[in-house]
């Protein structure tokens, strides 16, 4: 039974609670609900986390912006082609510190989702993000990024306008900025499309979010030639926040309430707020050079391999 089925069962119990008026019965069923929650929601499989990360009611970037920042002004367009709704960005105040905010936006309903293309950005979206980040660097504002995308959009227009180049350029430029980049993976972090705004000094993941090289479905169909094995793929891919913390790819995990962020968004917002405040304080005392170098070194050292050092044997450095 996966997490969505568990949720349905929980909902049934809660509906029953509303219908009852006998005090003793209410007490009983409340206890059943609590017990069930504690039992069913505490241990989640990787696939459960995939489902939670994609949950329709999960708070999206816009919700985080509304909850965490004051005086937010949204900025549109890449100044070249058009405004991509899959990525939203702008400036605002975080506890009176000016910041630039960028994030991939999923919609709350089908109409919204179509408007923002299910958070799958085109090149112009990444170029908009780049424009805003360059602006942040100019005015010395920290960059806060919210990652929530299945990946960059694969389409004729996207390829014609240089999807690959757009992502590469973002990575190229982000490695240079002297302002801190703080990244929160709040839902799905899918492949290059997520990394294009996610090359941060500090990267935090929500407990039930995922970050991977491609979707479990894609992984199963490429490596096992069977897209229906997505469940097994999710386990094999090691894409949960706990796996990534173990690999030291991310810097921290932000706790979610039992059963996912959508069950009590306020708790998540306040947790994110605290983490963000700590991170900003940590970088406030660092110089531009230190911030840039720290980010470069962080990514320079990621890799899992061994090397037989021939050069040391010969006494020559290469």
């Amino acid at each position, binding site marked *: 039974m996966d997490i969505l089925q568990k949720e349905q069962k929980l909902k049934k119990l809660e509906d029953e609670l509303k219908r009852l008026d006998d005090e003793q019965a209410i007490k009983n069923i409340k206890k059943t609900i609590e017990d069930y929650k504690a039992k069913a929601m505490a241990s989640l499989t990787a696939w459960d986390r995939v489902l939670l990360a994609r949950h329709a009611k999960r708070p999206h970037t816009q919700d985080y912006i509304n909850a965490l920042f004051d005086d937010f002004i949204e900025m549109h367009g890449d100044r070249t082609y058009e405004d991509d709704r899959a990525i939203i960005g702008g400036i605002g105040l975080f506890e009176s510190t000016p910041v630039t905010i960028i994030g991939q936006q999923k919609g709350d309903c089908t109409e919204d989702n179509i408007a923002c293309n299910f958070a799958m950005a085109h090149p112009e979206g990444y170029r908009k993000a780049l424009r805003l980040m360059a602006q942040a660097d100019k005015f010395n504002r920290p960059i806060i990024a919210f990652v929530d995308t299945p990946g960059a959009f*694969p389409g004729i227009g996207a390829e014609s306008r240089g999807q690959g180049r757009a992502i*590469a350029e973002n*990575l*190229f430029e982000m490695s240079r900025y002297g302002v801190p980049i703080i990244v929160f993976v709040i839902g799905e972090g899918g492949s290059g499309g997520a990394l294009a705004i996610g090359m941060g000094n500090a990267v935090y993941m929500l407990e039930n979010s995922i970050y991977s090289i491609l979707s479990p479905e894609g992984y199963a169909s490429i490596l096992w030639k069977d897209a229906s094995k997505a469940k097994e793929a999710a386990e094999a891919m090691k894409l949960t926040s706990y796996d990534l913390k173990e690999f030291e790819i991310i810097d921290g995990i932000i706790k979610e309430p039992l059963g996912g962020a959508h069950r009590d968004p306020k708790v998540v917002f306040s947790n994110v707020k605290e983490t963000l405040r700590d991170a900003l304080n940590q970088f406030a005392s660092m110089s531009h050079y230190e911030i840039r170098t720290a980010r470069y070194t962080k990514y*320079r050292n990621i890799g899992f391999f061994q090397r037989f050092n021939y050069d040391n044997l010969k006494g020559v450095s290469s």
Partner: protein
Amino acid sequence: MKRDVLKSAFQKRRRLLQTLNRMAMPSTQKPVDVPEGLYEKCMQCNATFLQERAVENAFVCPECDNHFRMRAVDRIRMICDEGSFIEKGYGYITLNPLFQEGYEQKVFTAKKRTKLDEAYVYGYAENHGYPFVIGVMDSHFMMGSMGSVVGEKVTKSVEYALYKKLPLIIFLASGGARMQEGIYSLMQMAKTSGAIRKLHDQGQLYVSVLTHPTTGGVTASFAMLGDIILAEPQALIGFAGPRVIEQTIKQSLPEGFQKAEFLQAKGMVDAVIHRHKLRDTLHTILKIHARSEV
């Protein structure tokens, strides 16, 4: 007594060194041994011809000009002056960070078949006497996919170019990031792009030559960051593969979509260069960018 121990340790080390040197790629390249009477078939025009003829013709179909995939060794031989190539940064060992089933076996088979460490080879080379750092991806090694080792070697080649103050030319042929290494492969995109940025800041030249196929995470990182981006005719270049796009948008793709000529028309590459002219074109580029102290 102590002396003996030391002596045997040194002998042991020398033996190891000799073995390793034998394993390393020789700096002088001999022509490929082509068995006589072996035929090759062009996948595009179905013409059959002696393999010898394909080699002579720089792995281009004599009938229809179709560019075949090249091994890294052949590529190096084609571009560099004879005997000038010196391989750097060998000896990397690919590990299995996510404990994927059958991954070690796959890598082992690829190593055995291609006689390469990994899908990327780099080193010092000269072209018409102009020194440069050459990096070549080999699509015969697990589709030239980028895992931890390839990412590290690409970064190392950039750092070597920085250290020697030489121009860098990379030949790309890759299916993208390596799935089996998961998030590590993804992070190599950031790593390589950051390294290219350092090269850029030092004012050094980076030429990327896109060959068939260049897709996925490699396109979205160091492939498209060249100061000059060249491509071979008919090479497939793109971020998402054509099959993925077809499945997503549920319509068939136009003729020539994602081919090198298409990318040139869309302004994504500087020039499409025939393989026969590649060596001379690179010579010209190196000549124009040669610094006074060289």
